């Protein structure tokens, strides 16, 4: 019998929720969902929608590819010799990126690649509308990943009094 007040309270919660959903102005309710195709949902600014690549920063170090839990990042690169920085120096060895693909049909949006990138080449973008009729088209190559860079929001400021400098998104 001790459960009865709780049971009645539970009924009250669902009924109250129904009234709240139907009468948005009574207690500031209304449905929490939106009519998606007609009304776009507004994702949180740091939402994990799609991964963007800033190609100039990538050194093809393969860290992201190796840390990826489901191996959905494919990187191919070749080495070349760049001219020396100073007169008479040795020519420098650099990596050139040939291929940088992320297969979003495999990706589980864990964000480990973004975390481990030591050169700030990978960023999260909140864009989410990139579904395809063919699953193979979910493999985004480096130019497609580069296009997402425009949608990457700025980093938010740290809380007041922090000495940390706010990181900048390269453009």
């Amino acid at each position, binding site marked *: 019998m001790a459960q009865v007040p709780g*049971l009645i309270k*539970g*009924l009250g*919660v*669902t*009924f109250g*929720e*129904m009234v*709240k*959903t*139907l009468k948005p102005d009574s207690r500031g*309710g209304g*449905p*929490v*969902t939106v*009519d998606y195709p007609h009304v776009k949902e507004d994702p949180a600014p740091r939402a994990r929608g799609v991964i963007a690549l800033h190609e100039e920063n990538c050194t093809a170090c393969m860290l992201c590819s190796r840390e990826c839990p489901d191996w959905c990042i494919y990187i191919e690169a070749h080495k070349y010799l760049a001219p020396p920085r100073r007169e008479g120096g040795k020519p420098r060895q650099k990596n050139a990126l040939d291929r940088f693909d992320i297969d979003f049909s495999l990706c589980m949006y864990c964000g480990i690649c973004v975390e481990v990138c030591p050169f700030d080449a990978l960023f999260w973008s909140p864009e989410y509308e990139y579904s395809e009729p063919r699953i193979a088209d979910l493999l985004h190559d480096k130019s497609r990943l580069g296009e997402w860079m425009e949608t990457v929001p700025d980093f938010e400021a740290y809380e007041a009094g922090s000495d940390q400098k706010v990181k900048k998104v390269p453009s």
Partner: protein
Amino acid sequence: MTHLLASIDLAYWQSTLIKLIVTAILVPTTALILGIVFLFKVMSWMQSRKGPQEAGPRGLLQLLADGAKFVQKEDIIPDKADRFVFKTAPLVVLMSTLLLYVVLPASQHLVVENLDVGIFYALAVSSLSVIGILMAGWASANKYSLMGALRAGGQLIAYELPMVLAVVGVVIQAGTLSLNGIVEAQANGAIFGFSALGNPYILTQFVGFFIFLAAVQAELTQTPFDMPVAESEIVGGYQVEYSGFRFLFFFLAEFATAFVFAGIAATLFLGGYWFPGIDTSSNAYWLIGPAVLFTKIMLVAFLIFWVRFTYPRFREDQLQAFAWKWLIPIALLNILATGIFKVVF
């Protein structure tokens, strides 16, 4: 109007044909109404959602679209299934539902068959669905199905008893088993000499009403009594192997049974088609009877589905304990009290 209708003398096969057509249209419609209004809309609202929006005005035709989808699906029968029993099981469940509609009066004459033992008959045919469910579970050749069917069997038999006992209180007070008679007894009754509202038995038999609703919830295998179809424990219970229109039959039967049980509850406890102030033999009931009954059914159905959308699932032993340790003793006490009051007053 009575003159007009009485002057039409239909042969037996003609009236049977009309009743058949009306039932064939009415039963799926009631299931659709409950499905759309409660399963889609009220459930969505209770979960801060809007529910279906695209199919038809405000998404009201969504269930029709879903039904069309089910009909298109492949009718899969497992290799080792007992094919004949597997195919018959949904029909047996649906038949039990259809038989329930037979005695539900929408007015004094708007009833398929006005039986003298109406409520007794209703309770008898409602337990037929257990056979269909056991058939479905056994014939599927699937351990989850069998487990679900056995759970359903145990549950439906355990809750049959409190339901019958809850009804006995009403029957004692009304002094008749006929559903029409029970409505009339409520219409002609009086509360302490005040007779404008009649005497809907929810006032005197509120314990019976509560027990009846709990038992109905269990009979419909709805949450919190949905162990037989608990998808997180036994995948889908006796429905696992069913697909396409056979699954649709189970779905239709569940919601049509919810409707007719809500109708029986409305008839037993809320006065059925009777509207306060209009005598039960009045001709007006040809028109307003179904409307009044429908309103009361929606009220009761809201209670049933409200509970469904609020509570989580019982554990199997809790379920049995609730029936045998609480509902049945309370129902027996209720009968005793009703009997004493009946003799004393």
